[in-house]
């Protein structure tokens, strides 16, 4: 039972990060029908921005601000920085190709992905970087927390899981309860009709990139607080986030959340109860099964083709 609880905690931690990445894919796909393959690299840049901010504030061993404030600043700056990058990507890589055949922005997305990876490598090198979060306040984030049975739930995991849920709920409220959200939904439903109703499409698309990239930035910091980061982490994380978005139904916000968590559970429980070698196989088998039997995902709408 203890192991089951621990795997569940592992799954929620991992799944929260995947869900935040998946939301970015879904937001952009929902509005632009574009697979933003550079999204995983925005996640990677977020991790690096968090690293830079951590160093600016004294590093993990001697931070000049309290730990809670340090984490808040790291996440906030990563979100802001990634939002700016997201806007730049949309403006320079996708907007000029908005009316081009669908393959063109896809190729552009791959180009942006490589651009981000190699620019970061040029700037910061290829080696792995570690936040060394274990050193913050003598390991308080890893060693303190509360117990479920014999299993300790460390503070850092509580922070990651709860922050991710807060961000996801905030996004859901924004999309479903605000005027801007209504404009986003309208644009997603029918871009031309939305434009005719007076909605500023460019602004809506830009806002989708701001939101998606900011969430990726937050996910990047959350990931790097627990595991080393390098310029290549975006590829696998992006692939997992994309898989989560597809499973949930690409374009669907609740779908991205559920898809991310599902992926976290699939990975964690396969590693725990089957074999660590098989976890990626399990994840991508689920993706293939969805593509074969429910291509619209859990919450997506099936294509209606008019003849």
């Amino acid at each position, binding site marked *: 039972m203890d*192991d089951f609880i*621990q*795997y569940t905690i*592992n799954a929620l*931690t*991992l799944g929260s990060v995947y869900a935040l990445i998946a939301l970015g894919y879904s937001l952009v796909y929902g509005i632009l029908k574009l697979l933003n393959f550079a999204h995983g690299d925005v996640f990677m840049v977020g991790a690096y921005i968090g690293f830079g901010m951590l160093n600016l504030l004294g590093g993990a061993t001697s931070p000049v601000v309290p730990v809670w404030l340090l984490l808040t600043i790291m996440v906030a700056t990563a979100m802001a920085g990634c939002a700016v990058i997201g806007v730049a990507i949309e403006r320079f890589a996708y907007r000029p190709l908005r009316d081009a055949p*669908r393959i063109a922005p*896809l190729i552009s997305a791959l180009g942006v992905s490589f651009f981000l990876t*190699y620019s970061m*490598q040029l700037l910061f*090198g*290829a*080696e*792995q*970087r*570690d936040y060394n979060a*274990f050193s913050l306040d003598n*390991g308080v984030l*890893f*060693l303190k927390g509360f117990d479920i049975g014999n299993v*300790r739930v*460390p503070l850092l995991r509580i922070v990651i899981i709860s922050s991710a849920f807060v961000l996801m709920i905030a996004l859901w409220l924004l999309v479903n309860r605000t005027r801007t959200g209504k404009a986003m939904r309208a644009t997603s439903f029918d871009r031309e009709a939305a434009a005719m109703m007076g909605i500023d499409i460019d602004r809506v698309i830009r806002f989708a990139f701001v939101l998606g990239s900011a969430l990726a930035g937050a996910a990047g910091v959350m*990931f790097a607080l*627990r*595991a*080393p*980061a*390098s*310029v*290549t*982490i975006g*590829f*696998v994380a992006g692939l997992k986030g994309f898989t989560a978005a*597809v499973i949930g139904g*690409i374009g669907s916000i609740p779908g991205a959340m559920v898809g991310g968590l599902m992926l976290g559970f699939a*990975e*964690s429980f396969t*590693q*725990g109860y089957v*074999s*660590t*070698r098989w*976890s*990626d196989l399990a994840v991508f088998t689920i993706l*293939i099964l969805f*593509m074969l039997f429910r*291509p*619209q995902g859990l919450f*997506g709408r*099936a*294509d209606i083709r008019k003849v």
Partner: protein
Amino acid sequence: MKKFSRLLALLCIAALASAAAATARPSSPSGSSAASALNCKSTLKIAFLTPLTGDAGFLGTEQMSWAKYAVKTLQGKYGLKIQLLGGDTQLDASLASSLAQKYVADPKVVAILGPSTSGAVAATSQTLYAAGLAHISPSATRTSLTKGTNREATPGFFRVVPDDSVQGPTDARFMAKNLKAKKVVLIDAQEPYSVGLADATQATLKSLGVTTIRESVNVSQSDFSSIVTKVPSDTDIVFAPFQQPPKAQTLAQQLIEQGKKAKVFGGDGTNDSDKFKVPGSYVSNFAGPIDSIPYDKAIIAGWKKDNPGATLGSFGPPAYGAAQVAMAAISKACAAGHGKLASRKAVIKQVKSVQIKNWILGGSFRFSSKTNDPFNGRFTIFQIQSDGKYKVVA
């Protein structure tokens, strides 16, 4: 959605094709392609096959910086003018194969450093040897490259670090005899270096009566939470032959996080006192701390001056050594040819006889008379102290 499904299917097929290409082996050598005689006063080229980008980019960039420093500081001593070329293998054997073909076609390339990884050696050795090119690796440690009945590398392959058949048993004996370990979990990263070292260590542990449990993680995985959950609470050691020190650090921290008493024991790939410093952990390496070797102090200072901000890792210094061996062999071949390099094979002939005093990894260096491995190669084991420093314990 159908179009999207088709697109995804195409991407899957492309990924499968790429994976198939990566596992493809070159055909058997088609004969020698000796370069025409080269004037040793002209600029000769040495190419380094190493992963400069990608998951192991840290390894290649570190090695490249040391090889560059060796060329810069030693070419004059050996009476040579050397241009060092960097071939980025990206940890991809098929890419290494293409690069090998490229360097074979350049008659000015007279020796190869690397390939850095065992998989790339297996994929390129026949091509390089058929063209007469010596290839000297600073880090490919898979035992079967130079030993056993089915050797994967040709006689043109040399390495300046001992192989896994030395490291694995050394580590295993230390765990069983010095640490009195009863249960060891071995986690490989599903790549040749890691699997080979874990295999060699596990075999010796078993022969010494230690209970072993084998696990694997994806090479790109860096969160080990679930594998740590699987580690039985009575485990004494978790052996982690990873190539990235921060991964060993994360593994050790996650063991503490989940209340496991097991200590991490890392292979030479995790040897980095800046990035793996969880007290109580163990690390093995093919050299003692080189910063404590008197004649290395000036070398390290010079390298640091050329690479401001870089930290002293374990993969770089052997690349300096490999470059030194290559230049020494070229120099000897030039001397034998009276200022002319008759062919690339003339370099291969000389590599085996190279001897270097004041070897960067300590002591002196020469190759074993039986294999193309270093003579008397041995591994040192360190324990990480409470201040993060590495203390030699065996």
